[in-house]
């Protein structure tokens, strides 16, 4: 039975910048009952708000450890729902010992918003 995953994959492909990896997000939508999927998107949304807030707040403090830890959590959460670009941006924040970058924090925020939009579309 492939129609559901195909449909979800097609939905993911509709987003020209591919904020979501169709193989992950589509599989998730197929594996889980709809109410579970919606709940996960909802909690993912809450995690994004919290973690991007921690990342942005770490920049003016020069808090490398806090920045990297939040970036690590964000990378894991993003990977789990197939938010590939957000995961890539967060992984950049995990690496190295350089001071937290305003530019990277802004990019992470933007990717988080794109991932949420894509997931919201997938859940409709």
């Amino acid at each position, binding site marked *: 039975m492939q129609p559901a995953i195909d449909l979800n994959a097609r939905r993911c492909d509709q987003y020209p910048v591919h904020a979501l990896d169709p193989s992950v997000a589509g599989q998730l939508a197929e*594996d*889980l009952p709809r109410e579970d999927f919606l709940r*996960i998107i909802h909690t*993912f949304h809450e*995690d994004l708000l919290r973690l991007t807030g921690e990342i942005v707040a770490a920049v003016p403090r020069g808090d490398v450890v806090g920045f990297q830890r939040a970036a*690590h*959590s964000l990378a*894991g*959460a993003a990977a*789990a729902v197939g938010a590939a670009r957000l995961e890539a941006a967060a992984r950049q924040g995990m690496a190295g010992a350089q001071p937290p970058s305003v530019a990277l924090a802004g990019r992470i925020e933007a990717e988080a918003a794109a991932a949420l939009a894509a997931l919201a579309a997938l859940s409709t």
Partner: protein
Amino acid sequence: MSSPARILLVEDTQSQAELAKALLRDMGVEIRHAETAGRALADALANPPDAILLDLELPDFSGFELMQKLRAEGVEAAVIVVTANASVNTAVEAMRQGAVDFIVKPYAKARLTVTLTNALEKRALTQELKTVRAQLSRDRFFGFIGASAPMQAIYRTIESVAASRASVFITGESGTGKELAAEAIHKASPRAAKPFVALNCGAIPRDLLESEVFGHVKGAFTGATDNRVGAAKQADGGTLFLDEIGEMPLEMQVKLLRFVQTGSFQPVGASRTEKVDVRFVCATNRDPLAEVEAGRFREDLYYRLYVVPLELPPLRDRGQDGVLIARALLAQLSREEGKRFRGFAPDVEQAVLAYAWPGNVRQLQNVVRNVVVLHEGEVVTPAMLPPTLLRVAPRPAAPVPMQPALAPPAAVPVATLVAEVMPAEPVAPEWVAPAHGPLPVSAPPALPISAPAPVTITLPSPMVVVEPLAVMEKRLILAALAETSQDVTRAAALLQINPSTVYRKMQQWKATGELL
């Protein structure tokens, strides 16, 4: 039906936790969630999980550190590391820290469920193996102390039979723990919360036995001034232990048979029968079949009660158990008596192992109590033991011929002693030297219980050969050492001399070149 596996999910990101819970829902496992390593540790200690799904990056301390703490606390859950960091180093470190598997985020439902199922199966097998190993090497079981193979078999039989309603017939010499076995059967059974009622049939006057078992109503006989509930009713829902059942009069056996068959009985003087649910456990130190053949025990009752036989081994057949029990008794009795004893001298433990213990554990208990009460110190020395224990015969073994003299050898039975601390048991006879014939070191006593077979050693007849005393002495000491595989303590016990005498003689012979 077994309870669902308990999974502890350690994950600080809520959406990750929700995802894992949703993916595992179909597995029917019980999932608890901890957001920090500290909470996970507290949760695992309070309610040990079967498996832990562990994120490595946690707010308070790392997942690896948590694994070390869990291991140090003895939590044996199967740990599966779940991480966004897919590096080989992380995987290697996870395995080195004791993780059973490693999952990289993102993961598919099948990957998570298969990994968890495998980990749970492996853990179940490990636990089962551990349980079996523990069962095979356990040195305590309910009230029993003992790690010997015969006792492991007893423990297993008790466990196997406990859940059943089948009657158990316990046999064994006096002091082997028949009532302890009956209590263990009861405590291991589903009846454990109900009464265990023990009745010694041999200690109750014949006329009162029926009333003791079935109770009586007021006025049933002279002196029955009130209704009395018997053991059968008291044991309703539980276990009725009839000790020394071989002592039960035949007319009472008929009534007991009816009770065993129907579960119903009639109190003495009552007009109505009562029905109870009782599990029967009986014991005797006699051979029950021989009692049937002798007409002292009803055959039909025998077959009703002798459903699961349980034969308790005598202490002399339990290897090192004697020392284990003696140590436990010493600790317990020293506490009770306010003494400082901490252990036994090696010679004493040797003597405990060498002695045949015809009165079994009860006799050993009496000896240890005797030592604790009469002596002071931290270590029990040979001088504190009752003399009979040091004059002990070796355990039954194949006869070892001693050096023959010129005259034909004579067979001599070596002493089989009983301890003097057991007032109910016969006391070891003194030396008796007849004018002619074999020289008995001491005659085996006529025991009411089966005594160990005497060891036969051939000795030269002192009536014929006269040798220098020193020569004879050396020959006898060396022969005793050969008989006991060079065990000085036992050799000295055989010769009824102090072990230090044997050591001194051997040193002397070595010094003069008479002994290599």
